[in-house]
């Protein structure tokens, strides 16, 4: 949430100035009125006039190219005319201005039409010029022409780069392509410094419009896709240049602020932010109808922006102070809108500090609704939903709330919020363990075409929402063992969110977690271990949990137990339910290691209640798995099987491939245990073999050799009991091969889920 005023023109300059570019436009108009042009071409030219007239100054090459695409004959005529003036004398230019059609009587350029007005403005501005100014204008015209004339090597019209892809430009797409072109052109000629250093001749003065356009474009790119914006260092250089020539250009300071935020430079960003607002206060007080009001307003927003800056850098105390200040001055001046913004920052800040802010948020939503600020209202609701989900509010309530806000979003075309809402739905589904729903929502978000107008050829797709969705998608792929897909997704994420950017941390953590899981599944604990500090750097709780897991796998039970205890206490304090459940499960597993199955039971039951209460289906199923295993170990396989059946369905439907394999293997083991007791023992055994086959297929997709080895062992024993020697021998051989490959002594199968 930023109060980006960059696009706004402060102190709009209404005066017109004749520039060489304007002269070329004038000569184009002159040609259009005097010479005969085919109707179709004329129509194209007419469509071109407005963007040319109102757009920023172009270089002559670009200008002529644009005209030539519509009507080559006119472009040539314009070029000849400019050539005459540039190669001639001052009188040629003066003559040109005297021959310009006088709009008053001319039918085609009627005096109040856009063209007529433009011509009259230009004539007026020209006539006002003093002698030396006229001479200077002529000089710059010559310069303008000769820069273009001097480098015809670049292809006939100077800008050959996009002749190929834009060759099919036709009537309908003229304006779009012009915008498109300007964007691309701006990438090259606007690099002031470059031009200054490398080619000092070609640099024309940077007009107000050009500067504004440059700023607006860069700000837009920073907001929507900062990979396409200039590199931070480059942009800084450009801005410094711009400020050197025009220190009053306050917006440049704001852009500087945004730019230094990209590279996390608190020093420059604070400086630029304050500078910008110092300037803004000035312009706010000078003009406009609401002089005094505008001035106070920028003060409030200045303080608010400062708060957001500190918040971004994690200085919560400072942010709090700045926010208090913003709130105080907003209250003093009865600015409810500003207060509302402050309030939403307040609860955000509270949330970041880790305290419960739902009351504040609710207040904020109510107030926002009252003051008709849909953006803030739904932002508040989304925040409430997030809190509710963590606290275990019922699912339908949350979904209802999201649906209601969605209606609001579509009504007001708040595309940013729609994205957030979708991302939130993904996260909620994932939390509940409904992977299919999550996947479907993720696809929805990624395939949705944004409501934002497509400017500068950039669609908005590097917001946090997209990062979240992609991370979830990556995790979902990893769960299904589709590591190829995961790698692809991370490649995209790396491109879209380079490591220095704000949302990069999301995928970094996600990537680490996936790698960790993979190594753990492969049994390569020595590879998993170095990842722990990296995870811990991103997220402390997660890091601790992973550390405990590694320690557990390395049989350093005591240490693992201590960490898990610590973690449990911590998570109970922060009410992080998911982690609590996982910790409980891990603790139970630790107890198994010491063959102490009954001690784990209360823990598992606690985990089950918790996960049911919070509707965490995936975790509930996993808990059931653990319970069933415990029962099996305690010698009640019938019970175990019945518990397992409860969990089997959701796991097979939504669970990760690892869970599926484990569940099936457990089922098989229960069946094996029942073989002896049941009358139809042989059939049972056959069923068990089949189940194990399925499990084996899951494990082999994950390439989880240890478990595969266990499966082969069990299968061999079953075949043996059925007297199927050939099959038994085959399984035994597979087991032997795997065993040789792994080289680690086989862990006691019984002790493991």
């Amino acid at each position, binding site marked *: 949430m930023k109060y980006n005023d960059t696009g706004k023109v402060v102190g709009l300059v209404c005066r017109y100035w004749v520039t060489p570019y304007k002269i070329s436009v004038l000569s184009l108009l002159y040609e259009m009125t005097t010479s005969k042009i085919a109707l179709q071409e004329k129509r194209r030219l007419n469509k071109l006039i407005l963007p040319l007239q109102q757009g920023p100054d172009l270089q002559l090459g670009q200008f002529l190219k644009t005209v030539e695409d519509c009507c080559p004959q006119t472009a040539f005529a314009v070029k000849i005319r400019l050539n005459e003036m540039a190669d001639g004398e001052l009188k040629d230019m003066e003559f040109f201005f005297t021959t310009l059609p006088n709009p008053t009587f001319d039918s085609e350029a009627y005096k109040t039409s856009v063209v007529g007005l433009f011509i009259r403005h230009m004539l007026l501005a020209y006539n006002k010029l003093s002698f030396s100014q006229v001479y200077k204008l002529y000089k710059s015209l010559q310069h303008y022409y000769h820069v273009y004339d001097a480098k015809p090597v670049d292809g006939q019209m100077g800008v050959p780069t996009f002749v190929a892809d834009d060759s099919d430009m036709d009537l309908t797409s003229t304006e779009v392509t012009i915008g498109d072109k300007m964007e691309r052109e701006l990438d090259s000629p606007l690099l002031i410094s470059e031009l200054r250093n490398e080619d000092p001749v070609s640099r024309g003065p940077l007009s107000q419009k050009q500067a504004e356009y440059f700023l607006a474009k860069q700000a837009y790119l920073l907001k929507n896709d900062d990979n396409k914006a200039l590199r931070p260092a480059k942009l800084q250089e450009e801005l410094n240049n711009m400020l050197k020539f*025009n220190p009053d250009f306050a917006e440049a300071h704001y852009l500087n602020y945004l730019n230094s935020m990209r590279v996390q430079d608190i020093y420059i960003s604070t400086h630029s932010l304050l500078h910008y607002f110092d300037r803004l206060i000035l312009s706010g*007080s000078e003009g406009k109808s609401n002089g005094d009001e505008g001035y106070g307003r920028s003060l409030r927003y200045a303080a608010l922006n400062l708060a957001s800056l500190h918040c971004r850098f994690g200085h919560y105390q400072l942010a709090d102070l700045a926010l208090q200040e913003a709130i105080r001055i907003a209250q003093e001046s009865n600015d409810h809108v500003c207060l509302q913004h402050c309030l939403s920052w307040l609860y955000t800040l509270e949330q970041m500090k880790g305290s419960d802010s739902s009351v504040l948020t609710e207040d904020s939503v109510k107030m926002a609704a009252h003051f008709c600020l849909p953006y803030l209202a739904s932002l508040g609701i989304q925040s409430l939903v997030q809190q509710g989900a963590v606290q275990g509010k019922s699912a339908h309530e949350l979904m209802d709330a999201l649906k209601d806000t969605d209606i609001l979003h579509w009504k007001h075309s708040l595309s940013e919020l729609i994205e957030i809402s979708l991302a939130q739905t993904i996260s909620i589904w994932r939390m509940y363990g409904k992977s299919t729903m999550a996947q479907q929502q993720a696809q929805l978000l990624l395939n949705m075409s944004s409501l934002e107008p497509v400017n500068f050829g950039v669609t908005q797709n590097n917001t946090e929402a997209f990062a979240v969705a992609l991370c979830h998608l990556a995790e979902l792929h990893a769960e299904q063992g589709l590591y190829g897909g995961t790698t692809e997704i991370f490649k995209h994420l790396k491109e879209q969110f380079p490591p220095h950017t704000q949302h990069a941390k999301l995928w970094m953590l996600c990537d680490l977690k996936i790698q960790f899981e993979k190594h753990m599944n492969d049994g390569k604990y020595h590879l998993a271990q170095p990842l722990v500090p990296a995870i811990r750097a991103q997220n402390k709780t997660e890091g601790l949990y992973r550390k405990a897991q590694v320690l557990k796998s390395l049989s350093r039970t005591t240490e693992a137990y201590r960490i898990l205890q610590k973690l449990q206490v911590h998570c109970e304090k922060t009410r992080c339910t998911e982690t609590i459940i996982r910790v409980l499960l891990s603790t139970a597993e630790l107890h198994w290691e010491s063959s102490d199955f009954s001690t784990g039971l209360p823990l598992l039951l606690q985990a089950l209640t918790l996960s049911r209460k919070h509707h965490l289906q995936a975790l509930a199923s996993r808990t059931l798995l653990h319970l069933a295993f415990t029962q099996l170990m305690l010698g009640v396989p019938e019970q175990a099987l019945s518990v397992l059946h409860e969990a089997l369905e959701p796991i097979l439907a939504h669970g990760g491939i690892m869970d599926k394999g484990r569940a099936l293997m457990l089922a098989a083991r229960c069946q094996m245990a029942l073989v002896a007791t049941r009358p139809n023992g042989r059939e049972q055994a056959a069923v068990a073999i089949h189940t194990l086959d399925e499990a084996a297929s899951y494990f082999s997709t994950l390439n989880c050799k240890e478990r595969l080895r266990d499966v082969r062992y069990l299968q061999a024993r079953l075949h043996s009991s059925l007297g199927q020697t050939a099959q038994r021998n085959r399984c035994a051989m597979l087991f032997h091969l795997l065993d040789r490959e792994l080289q680690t002594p086989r862990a006691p199968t019984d002790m493991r889920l």
Partner: protein
Amino acid sequence: CLITPNLKMAALCSEFGDLVQIKKQLISVISLCKERGLVHSVKWASELAFALDPLPKDELPPSHLVSEEDVQDLDAFALAKSYFDLKEYDRAAYFLRGCHSKKAYFLYMYSRYLSGEKKKDDETVDSLGPLEKGQVRNEALRELRVELSKKHRAGELDGFTLYLYGVVLRKLDLLKEAVEVFVEATHTLPLHWGSWLELCNLVTNIEMLKSLSLPSCWIKDFFMAHIYTELQMIPGALQKYQSLIEAGFSKSTYIISQIAVAYHNIRDIDQALALFNELREQDPYRIENMDTFSNLLYVKSMKPELSYLAHNLVEIDKYRVETCCVIGNYYSLRSQHEKAALYFQRALKLNPRCLGAWTLMGHEYMEMKNTSAAIQAYRHAIEVNKRDYRAWYGLGQTYEILKMPFYCLYYYRKAHQLRPNDSRMLVALGECYEKLSQQVEAKKCYWRAFSVGDVEKMALLKLAKLQEQLTETDEAAQSYIIYIQEIFSCGEQLEHVEVSTALRYLGQYYFKNKLYDEASLCAQRCCDYNDAREEGKALLRQISQVRDQTETPSGELFVSLSDNNTPIKRVSPLNLSSFTP
């Protein structure tokens, strides 16, 4: 020029002891600079030469050593110099283009440079658009740089052309190269003050200064003193100037003015005023530095003197930046802030890069409660010079007036960074922290302000009050004790003195701690002040009541009271040295 190497040798081996040598060198360099139209260096050297004793006739250095080339170019040079003096630079350059002597070459290049500068100034007036205004540049610079760098590489540049090359580089914002060239220039021609002065503007910190290898020459001491003043290292500067005076430059107006400015920078107002008065006696028509003088008079609220100065300067030259600043100060002192702002604006019109005027204008707008204009003015000042602590401080004050204590923290911090030992910024910071209820930081600031030498004697009082609020009674009492000591020891009467508050608190404090002797002493002292008299009496009554119940007091205390002006010191039961906040 054949004379240059001789001069250089002479300069390098001479010491201060040999004032005659120095005088000779100055006379030679004056004539050299004069020939080349470097008026400011001529002025500086002449001022210095004037301060030294005149030489006897036979001691005067030979006026010229003329080389063959000089003879060839003599006529062209004379013609060009006359055009140059009449500011017809292009014409001068035209007639010099074929000359070969170094002197002529310098004048040729210099005329071209000045012509470019003049055209730039003219262009600024009639530019084609609003944005073009900032883009007007001296077009000659680039060509000059190319030519000069060629010659530089070939090693054909003498001291003066090196100086010009440096100036060109600086104007092109090639600061690093410029510094190198200026250093080289000082080595080739140490006596040319212009190169040193340029170097002064380019050296931004002491580390950079230390890294330069400069020729050891008597003029280097002047340079060091000047740059110490620029870098706010006033004690060092004063020491340097003092040794220069002792070496025999005691009559130099330049040194006197520099010392006065230095004293002004460390706010030693009386010293500075005395020096400025002396300066005006010696050099009554001087306009330089008079704005600083007026600042001092303003601070001291010396209306008649300021008025006299203003009238005097107007008579000398009313279209000078300094004059406008003085008049602005004059109006400001008379609380005619609109007029004051007007005059500062005029000063800025005369020289937009005049730093002081921007800041002063900001102060005027502050007085007029026009905060936004004040912010603008201060911002301009910062743009001209980022190291202007007054502007940063002013911005902080503006936001403080707008009741944004957190916001102004940044500005005060900036100011504090620039003047780490100025108590005013620290007190301001402390106040802001106090408003933000950050008492720990506030206490630190106040204590630090006291430690660096509190100008306004407010820091301790504020500290004590803060501690009182926080019910840190012992610490508060300590602070009050030191405060009272400070007030009495400084002797002169200050405004806003709140000794009574301190005494009242101390009385109560001692009373609570059952130190009745001290308490009654404080209470008695309280009675000296109108606002605390009643409370003092009440406390005395309370004390006597309590005493009646217990013991009779010893008579010794009253003896000490009668003959001691600051009795608190003696009876203070607390150990002062152990106090830290």
